[in-house]
């Protein structure tokens, strides 16, 4: 199987994982973050900087990236929790912008707008592989981990608390649910998983610059895939990615940036207006009849 198709498979799994991480915050937690690319970028940059500039193993970079991303997530989202609904989302739009400015200007560390190229030294220790199949496996594992965590939350205490909070925060509070604590937990999990996705991206693409990892397009895509597949369901993001990523590959090849996003915007609108429950949701509802 040639590289082109393998790449599509890798990206499908990666987007499914990223979308799944977002789904935790937005679908289960009701926190529609439009700034996931901030977490993605921090994870990617941490790994890249530590590896390319300081020669530190990306596995350590992964850990650091997760820690850094999670603490940043807590710091910036905590004051925003008092904003509900769309205002929270508007606030989240700001973070990737700030991160991108930071990345562009902190030249000593991030090499500014020229970006970082990761040296191609394949080894398990460097998490860089010659064969794409290794990446296929790794991205598959990541996707399954996200799925597993989602299922665990879905069936457990956290899942119930999240849905309760989403349905009626007052009622949930009267039964002992602490909204801030719950929101923090789900944000941390979501940020951590997204950061891992960033780590993977850095070690796979081997190049990143501020626009490629902090772009709003990443946030749009992540949201769109979950929405199409089914927001708030464990398999939704996977279904969405399975449908859209191959399509996206074709679109990119034929159309290029503007029209591609044009279609995304249109699809986003269409899904919201016509089938807000996405594929999984609509299927589940149809099954119940």
């Amino acid at each position, binding site marked *: 199987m040639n590289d082109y198709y393998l790449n599509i498979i890798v990206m499908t799994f990666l987007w499914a994982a990223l979308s799944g991480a977002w789904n935790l915050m*937005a*679908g289960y937690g*009701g926190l*529609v973050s*439009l700034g996931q690319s901030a977490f993605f970028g921090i994870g990617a940059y941490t790994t890249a900087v530590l590896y390319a500039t300081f020669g530190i193993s990306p596995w350590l970079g992964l850990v650091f990236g997760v820690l850094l991303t999670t603490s940043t997530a807590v710091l910036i989202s905590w*004051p*925003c929790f*008092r*904003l*509900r*609904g*769309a*205002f929270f*989302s*508007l*606030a989240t*739009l*700001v973070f990737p*912008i*700030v991160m991108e*400015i930071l990345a562009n*200007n902190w030249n000593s560390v991030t090499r500014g707008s020229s970006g970082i190229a990761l040296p191609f030294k394949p080894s398990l220790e460097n998490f860089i592989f010659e064969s794409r199949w290794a990446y296929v496996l790794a991205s598959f594992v990541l996707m399954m981990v996200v799925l597993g965590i989602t299922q665990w939350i879905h069936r457990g205490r956290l899942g119930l608390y999240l849905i309760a909070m989403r349905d009626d925060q007052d009622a949930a509070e009267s039964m002992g649910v602490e909204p801030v604590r719950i929101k923090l937990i789900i944000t941390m999990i979501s940020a951590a998983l997204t950061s891992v996705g960033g780590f993977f991206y850095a070690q796979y693409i081997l190049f990143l610059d501020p626009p490629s990892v902090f772009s*709003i397009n990443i946030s*749009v895509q992540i*949201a769109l895939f979950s*929405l199409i597949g089914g*927001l708030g369901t464990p398999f939704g993001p996977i279904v969405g990615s399975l449908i859209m990523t191959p399509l996206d590959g074709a679109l990119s090849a034929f159309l290029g*940036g*503007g*029209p*591609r*996003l*044009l279609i*995304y*915007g*249109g*699809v*986003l*609108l269409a*899904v*919201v*207006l016509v089938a*807000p429950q996405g594929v999984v949701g609509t299927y589940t509802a149809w099954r119940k009849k």
Partner: protein
Amino acid sequence: MLSILPQLIASGLLIGGVYALLSIGLTLIFGVLRIVNFAQGEFIMLAMFGAFWANTLLGIDPYLSALVVVPVIFFIGMLVERYVIQRILFAAHSMQIFATFGLSVLMQNLALTFWGPDYHSVTTSYTSESFTIAGLSLSATSLFAFIAAIVMAAGLIGFLHFTRGGRALRAMVQNRYAASLMGVDTKRLNRLAFGCGVGCAAICGCILTPMYYTFPTVGVDLIITAFVVVVLGGMGSVAGAVVGGLIIGVAQTLTGFYLSVEFKDVVALLLFIVILLIRPQGLFGRAGTEDIGMK
């Protein structure tokens, strides 16, 4: 260093007027429909392009083109309300967000696809002109923008307080259900409010055209600032949008001069975090209005 302070404040106030202009439409739509219009920036962008094309193809002055551009966009706004907004008014918050956000992405990329990514600028006879009043140098375009903002705000406030339609809108802001019980045609007024909201954006766009670059993603920059202004001023408050805009304008000019140019961009965002922490409802908002969707 201090002698330049009055000039800085004056410039800051002028730019603040522009920010106020950006935000008034956003806050109006939120006040009446309880929806945050993520695509507000894109309506501004549309107007800017309208003014740009009018100027480039027909030689019409941007301010003058407002006479046509604004009604057209008002009309587009009504259409959007009818076919998109109306259908998500009672949907889950996440869906409302996706709808206007999707609209924003759609509009941005429509512009990108059909008009290209290039930055355009419109220069008119008064683009680089400035007036000297009381020893202060005020750029013509900023001055016009400032005056337009005040006039628009005053007009809107007057409309809201002194006309029947305006009072109906205010009733809706306070209590939609009660208003509908009292015979207020909420559906029609929703459409009107949305149309007015994007109409304000259109006015803003025409005014901005001579002083800013016109390009498809200009809306993104603008909406962030507009949002900060609305949060600072208080959601749903037109007066708040004006005051908030002026404050942000002055704050930016002062930090830009006394601290550094890079800080200028960041100061609005910093202010935003600070407001969130100490007074989330903004200056003129009622406590709790940052929680939309509450009873």
